């Protein structure tokens, strides 16, 4: 008799908090939109500073939808390819640093420097190396997203217990066997934690890159700037929401992979 109640309670505790947060955010959005004195000055919805949620799609004509779709494709492909490259680069760096302490001490300051250097400073170098279009946006995405993967891979690889290393030493395992059968599986929970952070950063990188490198079809970042300059807040917010949804999508995909590959055996 008690089990169905428990199941309902479990469902409640899973779905109610996100719903409550959603309601609070939407309510806050309405409150903000209606509290601004000049928010509805134009009357036709085109010049809203912050459109309330139900007016988001006012002014979205076919041409605008096409522009948003094209920009979404550009930013999505940049984020996906950039994220893949960040995974390869981050893991390669993490593994390399875990193998050699001297390589770690040689590379680590530079990796931190890259992290804290504003992208605008690197713009001339990126244009010189990768051009001013897709390659440049990709470079920015990788630069912004690789660091959590590299640092978490390094941390995970170094966290393997000494006893497990001893087991592999006794079997006279090769370095490759130790890497693929011991260190990488042991590091996978930490690597996935890094991937979850980097997934969001890859989307940010794709959009930020778009601000600086303006050749070719605009991505979501440049489109947001256009709509802002045209005071078309509705399309601007829709574009921003799409960017947020892409970020959420990345996060969900990484979380699903983690649930599939790590959660069955990993108990933190």
């Amino acid at each position: 008799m008690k089990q169905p109640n428990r199941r309902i309670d479990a469902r409640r505790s899973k779905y109610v908090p996100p719903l409550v947060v959603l309601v609070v955010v939407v309510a806050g959005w309405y409150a903000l939109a209606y509290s601004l004195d000049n928010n509805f000055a134009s009357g036709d919805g085109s010049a809203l500073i912050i459109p309330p949620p139900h007016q988001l799609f006012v002014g979205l004509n076919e041409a605008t939808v096409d522009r948003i779709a094209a920009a979404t494709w550009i930013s999505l492909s940049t984020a996906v390819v950039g994220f893949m490259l960040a995974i390869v680069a981050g893991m390669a760096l993490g593994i390399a640093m875990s193998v050699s302490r001297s390589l770690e001490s040689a590379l680590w300051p530079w990796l931190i420097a890259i992290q804290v250097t504003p992208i605008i400073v690197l713009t001339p170098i990126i244009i010189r190396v990768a051009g001013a279009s897709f390659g440049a946006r990709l470079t920015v995405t990788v630069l912004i997203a690789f660091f959590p993967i590299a640092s978490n891979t390094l941390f995970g690889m170094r966290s393997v217990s000494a006893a497990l290393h001893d087991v592999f030493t006794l079997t006279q395992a090769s370095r490759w066997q130790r890497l693929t059968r011991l260190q990488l599986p042991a590091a996978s929970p930490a690597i996935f934690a890094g991937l979850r952070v980097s997934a969001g950063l890859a989307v940010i990188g794709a959009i930020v890159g778009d601000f600086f490198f303006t050749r070719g079809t605009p991505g979501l970042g440049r489109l947001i700037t256009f709509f802002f300059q045209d005071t078309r807040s509705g399309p601007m917010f829709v574009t921003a929401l799409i960017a947020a949804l892409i970020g959420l999508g990345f996060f969900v995909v990484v979380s699903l992979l983690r649930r599939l590959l790590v959660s069955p055996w990993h108990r933190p």
Partner: protein
Amino acid sequence: MAVSDPAIARLSNVGHHFGGTAVLSDVNLQLAAGEIVAIVGPSGCGKTTLLRITAGLLAPTRGEVSRPEHRIGFVFQEPALLPWRRVEANAHLLAASDDGSMVEQLLSVSGLADHRRKWPHELSGGMKMRLSLVRSLAARPQLLLMDEPFGALDQITRNRLHDEFASLHASQKFSALLVTHAIDEAVYLADRVLVMSGAPGRIMQEFDIDFARPRAAGLRYSPEFTSLCGAIAESLQLQAGRA
């Protein structure tokens, strides 16, 4: 170095220090084929270091060690299982690829056959330890080194594992070096018990255990067993007092 005499492993004048701290001094020890030797000693006397040196995981700063080149098993204080591999895969980790029947037999003897699809985190402490033992024995070791393998278990589980271990030893005839803090465990399982001094550890006294194998069911409660445990405890107390 390959073993060329009847001893499976031999340590001659082995000494070791970490930095300026001497841990072992002039340890001489030999292990015959099929023999189980237990080592007891005060905490910090270098028992684990001695095991690691015997296994080849650590090079001694003095002395010589001969051991089998392959098939050395090591059961650590912690089970040291691969958490991302199921029970079955962990059991197969060190076994030869064509030695599946051996692993099956070990899983069955150790009562883990019905848990083969479980993850390590789903096992109890005793089951994890059994799996660790199964994994080491699946490699058909000539020499098995054990570092307080039953230390974290309750008395009942420990006694049951002692009997399982003894029956596996009877069928496989490996040599074993067992480090333990439990004197009754040492007397029950070993053919010889060595008492070490405090750091730097050296072997101070040796007790031969002559009880028949397989051990009788009530052996632990016999006056002879209790008396031998008492003698070893006294020797150990003496060493601890000197440390």
